């Protein structure tokens, strides 16, 4: 099956099996180094990519669903401004995820930031429910390399950077 899509800013025309998972397309056909393993849909949370700017598990997206879509993996995301917020938060907290989950964890944090930095969504939510939301989202990745409390702290710091940057841009 021929599938046209945009991956990391490049317009591609792929010839792949129509039901092949996106994670395998990225790993096998495109040799994308940001994805390290394929769990076969067991939701290990290590294959997160951005599909039309929304984080998804690429092992749960078949090839026929990416037609005409814009996919961003960590390879292109790490060159963006948004990544700087998270990178700075890692440095500020003194904790960094291990190499095998770093890419996926960073994209999960990006997804949380997108959700929380939209002011309308935060308004009306109490602090406890926001905290619960962060914990639930972070639990997607099963790697044990970093403590959950430390990860929550990273998200909170990154959120501060993100909101500050937005305010500066607005003013």
């Amino acid at each position, binding site marked *: 099956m021929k599938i046209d899509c945009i991956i990391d800013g490049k317009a591609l025309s792929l010839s792949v*099996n129509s039901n092949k998972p996106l994670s395998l397309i990225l790993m096998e056909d495109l040799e994308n180094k940001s994805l390290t393993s394929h769990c076969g849909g*067991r939701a290990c949370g290590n294959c997160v990519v951005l599909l039309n700017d929304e984080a*998804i598990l690429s092992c749960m997206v078949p090839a026929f669903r990416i037609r005409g879509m814009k996919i961003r993996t960590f390879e292109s995301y790490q060159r963006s401004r948004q990544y700087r917020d998270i990178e700075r938060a890692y440095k500020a907290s003194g904790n960094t995820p291990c190499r095998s989950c770093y890419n996926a964890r960073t994209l999960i944090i990006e997804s949380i930031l997108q959700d929380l930095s939209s002011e309308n969504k935060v308004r009306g939510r109490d602090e406890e429910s926001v905290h619960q939301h962060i914990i639930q989202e972070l639990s997607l990745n099963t790697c044990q390399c970093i403590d959950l409390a430390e990860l929550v702290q990273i998200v909170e710091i990154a959120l501060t950077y993100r909101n500050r940057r937005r305010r500066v841009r607005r003013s």
Partner: protein
Amino acid sequence: MLEGVRSPLVYTPRSVNEFATIIARHPHAVIWAGGTYLMSRPQYYPSEANDGIIDLAAMEELKRITRNDRYVEIGAMVTAGQLLSAGRLLLPSLLQQTLRTMGTQIVRRQITVGGSLCIEGERLSLATALAILPATAEIKRFDGNKVTTHWVAISKLYDKEGVLTIADQPFLLTRIRIGLEFGDFQRFLLFGDAVRNPLECGIVAFHAKREQNGLSKAQFSVAFPRKAFHISRDLESKLSGVALPIHPERVNTLSYELVAELTKMHHAISDLQLERVRRIFESFLHDLNSQSLS
């Protein structure tokens, strides 16, 4: 492409009529909603879907949420994430609690209502919660070129093992309808991880209507993915009409009666799962008592 593995044909109907034409030609085609369950099967890839795949993503009529004074209608292709964000004001709290337990926001973007209700032999959160709410599903059955439409109560869609009872011929669940008259006491609890470790997981939903000093209606369902799906009619009749608060000894007796009922009807449930369900059920009743006293 893998050598020797034929790439399955993908059909993308835009309406139910188009779907009917395709399913008449390819009755064994895989019907694709969100794909989260299908893609998590160990034999998913590489494998041959000989009769092709029917992708429902282009069917706009399955993506609507509508509401009137009596009920909410939710299209089968509405995702759990969309439903949770759109339904804060329209959905019963039981359903909101249920949707929140369906993985993280990233996974909820991919889970669809129809897909969650129609997976073959595994009953998860949504089916368990909807089974005790006044919820029905519109089922279109396809027999050659003939299409028949039925509204079926969600609780009647599954047998005691949680297997779909309507899967004997091609069908399409197009939308669900949830009545807006529900009880004021609603609880939902999931223990274990339904995706990563379904065999040790359990899902419990409880819904009750209180009137003056008693319960006018109580409904309780419990699911053990791949093992059992249980709606306790016996317990419901015992609880309906009971005066509040329920005596702690009676609560204890009822919880052991539930265990006896589950053990009698389902053999695959482990002792640990039974004990956890018993305690959850007890905690719901104690919670109901404390609310009635406050």
